[in-house]
């Protein structure tokens, strides 16, 4: 049938439909960041971290931050740069073994640290993105992680109640993005990045390639632009390798 309820878009230039999320640079992207805020950072180790946003945070030297990130960088890169300047009040992470300064600040009590299971970290981000306030997971039952949390049996197995994060800004690194905020990630640099999009009030994305709309296959977008508030092309990506392991050529 030719429906009476036809979507006509009379005369409208269809390109104007998409909502443009681009900002000029990292400085504009970080507009509104303040002392004592809570941030989520994508990345696993040094892979897929938002290098440009971190550099800008270092430059601004805002303090008292609560940072949610799987790792805490290394001493001189990633979130380690914020630790050096004592910008971080509290870290929520799953593994921080690569960072001596972190360990020193934690053991001395300067830095507040909440270590949580990696899958729980990912799921608490995804829950924030998805409007799920809380969920049950078996991870951490019977350990320090369950302290102060509700536990409950489902199907004869004990679980812990975990809550969605509540963050002010999310800092994300994607491989390619378009001006409408649609994102594509590469390899294991994907990691927590997609789960953190839309998990904070404002999601800031830095990309290696910023494309016009229509360049990405709509079937192959990892994160639709609706989860992104600001996108910019990163000025510089070092992409440092943490453990360079190779095999000899035969």
């Amino acid at each position: 049938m030719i429906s009476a309820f036809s979507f006509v878009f009379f005369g409208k230039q269809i390109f104007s439909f998409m909502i443009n999320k681009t900002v000029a640079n990292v400085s504009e992207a970080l507009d509104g960041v303040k002392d004592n805020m809570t941030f989520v950072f994508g990345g696993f180790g040094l892979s897929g971290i938002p290098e440009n946003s971190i550099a800008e945070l270092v430059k601004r030297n805002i303090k008292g931050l609560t940072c949610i990130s799987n790792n805490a960088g290394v001493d001189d890169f990633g979130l380690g740069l914020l630790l050096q300047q004592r910008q971080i009040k509290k870290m929520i992470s799953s593994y921080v073994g690569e960072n001596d300064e972190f360990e020193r600040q934690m053991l001395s009590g300067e830095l507040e640290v909440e270590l949580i299971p990696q899958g729980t970290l990912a799921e608490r981000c995804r829950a924030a993105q998805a409007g799920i306030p809380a969920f049950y997971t078996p991870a951490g039952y019977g350990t320090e992680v369950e302290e102060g949390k509700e536990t409950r049996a489902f199907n004869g197995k004990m679980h812990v109640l975990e809550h969605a994060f509540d963050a002010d800004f999310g800092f994300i690194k994607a491989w390619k993005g378009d001006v409408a905020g649609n994102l594509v990630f590469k390899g294991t640099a994907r990691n927590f990045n997609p789960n953190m999009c839309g998990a904070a009030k404002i999601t800031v994305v830095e990309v290696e390639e910023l494309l016009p709309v229509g360049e990405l296959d709509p079937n192959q977008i990892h994160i639709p632009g609706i989860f992104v508030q600001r996108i910019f092309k990163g000025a510089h990506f070092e992409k440092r390798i943490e453990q360079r392991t190779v095999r000899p050529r035969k």
Partner: protein
Amino acid sequence: MLDKTGIAKRIAQEVKDGYYVNLGIGIPTLVANFVREDIEVEFQSENGVLGMGPFPFEGEEDADIINAGKQTITTLPGASFFDSAMSFSMIRGQHVDLTILGAMEVSENGDIANWKIPGKMVKGMGGAMDLVASAENIIVAMMHTNRAGASKLLKSCSLPLTGVGCVKKIVTNLAVLEVTEDGFKLLERAPGVSVEDIEKATAGNLIIEGNIPEMKI
């Protein structure tokens, strides 16, 4: 008095620059045709598409590209497809800015009923319960009275609810109303409709303050 197209035209004025909008089946679907041309808006359909475009040209229909009303559609450059869980992440996570949907009944405290007539019509709620439970900005598009002439704006809903205290605004063939703590606040009259006409057609508490302007469409 407005026809369905008129209701859609009036609601289109509520669509602001930068909005992601979910349109329900029926009158809401029409809204897309009347959105201002100088603003950026994207339409989401809960079956898994953002950036919906017009219906396809004849012969270009694709069974794999439909909207939530199961109609064949197209997508615009910059569109994306995604799975149902992610679609409802958008909705439940309050990433969609405006939800426009139809209703069988709305109560003066913003409850909505639109999915079931016990013993008669049992089509199901589809995505409506997720939408009304999470959306911060819900506009109902409907006729002011049902086919039997009874008001659909009630003190309390008689049908099973879809959601509680969620409707913010209602656009009918007779009026634009805001749901307030004290009931339906009359904002605008449809062309040629008097305040008395609206009073007669409204069973819930109707708040009339000052002069009620006629809609501009």
